[in-house]
């Protein structure tokens, strides 16, 4: 398969090249163009569920993480209208769950929070849903706090595609959809997940966290205290959270 061609797409007036088989998101990331996203992580199969990366392609709506790049596409992304849409979607994610940033140990390392700041989100705007969701603290080193889950399925895919396991899934329907664990007990302790697994670290929010490491990095020196979520090459930095983010 040829990995390059001479064809280009145009994002917000900037013409960028793309490789055969790339999505708009892939091409944008390669060109250091940030399109806000939560359920996408390079290297994992695109999901297209959070819809934060929604763009207008030749006047039609598309998710840049799943839409194949094709020559000549005229794409609008960083526009006032689209950023307003993205802010609203981020607010929807906030009110749907139970997110209390000040008391969450993921604060400062949380991509949802960072995207909120990036989009100038000042409040949840909509009435809170206050769902009742279960915590799973059964595992010795990893905890699931479903209050914070945004159903991005990054952990589901990381476990299957990278870790070679199948620890997580999304169950249920509509607003009752929730993260579930692939074990007869439904508990994390009864799975083969390990703390070195990508699935244990990939959560963009504080829904899956490693126990006994909270607050090792003080607030003020965390990932998004030092970096913008829109910074090129930020993905590995986000994954290193809880370690030495500023090194």
């Amino acid at each position, binding site marked *: 398969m040829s990995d390059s061609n001479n064809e280009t797409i145009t994002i917000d007036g900037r013409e960028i090249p793309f490789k055969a088989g790339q999505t708009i998101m892939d091409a944008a990331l390669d060109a250091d163009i940030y399109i806000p996203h939560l359920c996408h992580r390079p290297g994992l199969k695109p999901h297209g569920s959070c*819809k934060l990366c929604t763009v207008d392609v030749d006047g039609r709506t598309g998710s840049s993480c799943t839409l194949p790049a094709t020559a000549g596409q005229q794409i609008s992304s960083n526009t006032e209208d689209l950023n307003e849409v993205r802010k609203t979607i981020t607010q929807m*994610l906030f009110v*749907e769950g139970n997110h209390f940033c000040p008391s969450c140990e993921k604060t400062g390392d949380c991509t949802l929070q960072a995207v909120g700041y990036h989009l100038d989100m000042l409040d949840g705007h909509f009435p809170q849903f206050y769902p009742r969701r279960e915590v799973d603290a059964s595992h010795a080193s990893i905890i699931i706090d479903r209050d914070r889950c945004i159903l991005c399925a990054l952990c589901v895919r990381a476990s299957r595609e990278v870790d070679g*396991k199948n620890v997580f*899934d999304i169950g249920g*329907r*509509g*607003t009752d*959809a929730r993260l579930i664990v692939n074990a007869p007990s439904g508990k994390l302790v009864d799975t083969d997940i390990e703390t070195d697994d990508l699935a244990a670290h990939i959560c963009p929010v504080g829904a899956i966290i490693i126990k006994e490491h909270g607050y090792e990095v003080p607030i003020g020196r965390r990932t998004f205290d030092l970096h913008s979520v829109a910074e090129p090459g930020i993905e590995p930095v986000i994954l290193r959270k809880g370690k030495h983010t500023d090194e």
Partner: protein
Amino acid sequence: MELNSGLKKQPTASLMSSENRDHLNGNHLLHRLYDIQRQSHHIPQHAIPALATELELPVSQIESAIDFYSFFHRTPRGRFDIMFSNCTSCGDLGMMRSLCDKLNIAPGETRADGAVSISDASCIGMCDQGPALLVNGRTITKLSPRRLDLIAEHIEANRALDQWPVEWFDVHDNVRKNGLLLSAPFEPGSALLASIKQGQENMLANIDQSGLRGRGGAGFSTGMKWKFCREAKGDAHYVICNADEGEPGTFKDRILLTSHAHSVFEGMTVCAYLIGAQKGYLYLRAEYRYLLPSLQAVLTHRHNSKLLGEEILGQHGFDFDIEIIVGAGAYICGEESALIESMEEKRGIPRVRPPFPVVSGYLNQPTVVNNVETLAAAAQIAVHGSDWFNAHGSDKSAGSKILSISGDCLTPGAYEYAFGVSIQRILDDCGAEDVQAIQVGGPSGTLIGPDEFERKLGFEDLATGGSFMIFGKDCDLLKVICNFAHFFAHESCGFCTPCRVGTTLLRNGLDKICNGKGTQYDVDEMRRMAALVKRRSHCGLGQTAPSPILDALERFPELFNEKLVHSDFEPHFDLDAALEEARQLTNRDDAEAHL
């Protein structure tokens, strides 16, 4: 622990052979869960690991499916498990509450003695003969206060369903107006003979030239779809009949499956012949489970007549078999890629497209998914030719459309019209007077008022999958819109943020306005959210869910204005409702415990 996250092995040949005389794969996850629930009145937790081992599926895949489909339950249901339709046409929740009172039970609960449980369900497709309910999956139509009394008596007497009066379970076709399809006699095998005689290329050209477009509502050219699938490379090709007729107000497929099943199955077989498929599936909505025996009998008959199986009509290399898969209560499975996911024993989550099913569908192989009516029409076109078909209809909409007419009219039922017919003509035929509004194409379609009754039915003007709901002058239209908003919030699959959260926000916003607490601010907010959900959702469900609200805001703004309180802002927060949890904890419900 199951390591393989991907698909289970392909269905084995033995399960698929013509020896399988019930034409159902008994090992399909949805069928196994149905069997377990029939025995235990729910899916017991302990049954899941054993089922996972037996079916070689991850436990989480079974867990996720149980909670996805409305007809599966985690806690025991009654020996008589009753679901009242909550559709504006075939539902009557007042009757549900009345039966609950008679049987001393609350909606959604199971009585302590395990005798009965009562809840509601999305439209069950009986809109021409409602109010209707399902009891243990069987349909009872034409409910009346008298019938409810008797049902309560039968339940208290613990009388088995087969001892209940058989006429309660009658479902009538109610065909009020025959057209091209419903009136044409069909000789089983005739479309196949014509296809074999003309050859594949010619017959495909014939279907294409007929101008037939998908009858599910989207209207994609059937000839093109078949052609794309035929040209797509794969290990196998599949043809699927989408009989998951879930759009509220639609019941025309019920009639085709009841009285025209041969032409539906023959349409599938013609398609198989043209695209090179050896296997076909009919995905039947669970609400139509009562049709299963008659559909199975037709399939058996077709086998015996060499119209299915190996070497169909003696044609060497023409092998094709049809199996039925029964759903479990999920409107989203009417979306073709969600339907395929459901067939693959997963939650019905619409796939990312491209690739389209014609290239990568069932088991990632080239797949045609067609509506019941499309396939029946294709069979007739194969017999009578493309000219016969496109001599009827309008420029861009060839042929005819079967409508499911319900609501405020004298004679609800199935009406078949050539495309291009005016709405007013339809209203005259079914005896609808003083009409306030019509929902054309069901909740996901278009809401129109009297000044638009000269508009025409067709893809170029008012497209429809068949639902035609009439609301008379005395109908509380805002309540109807509210009902639709509840429907979509309930049926949203939950995959994408705009639809999952947005349909719930829209539902809550409408509830607030209906309850007389809404302000102009709430209307503006709803308009903004509706636009976002419509534009940014992943699939057709989200993209159409806000339509009734947007249509009503545009055409019937007074519905909202009359209900608004005239202040700038009213909180969503309801203090009395917030105290409900405290009341339950303290076991109080007296006046002092309320504000």
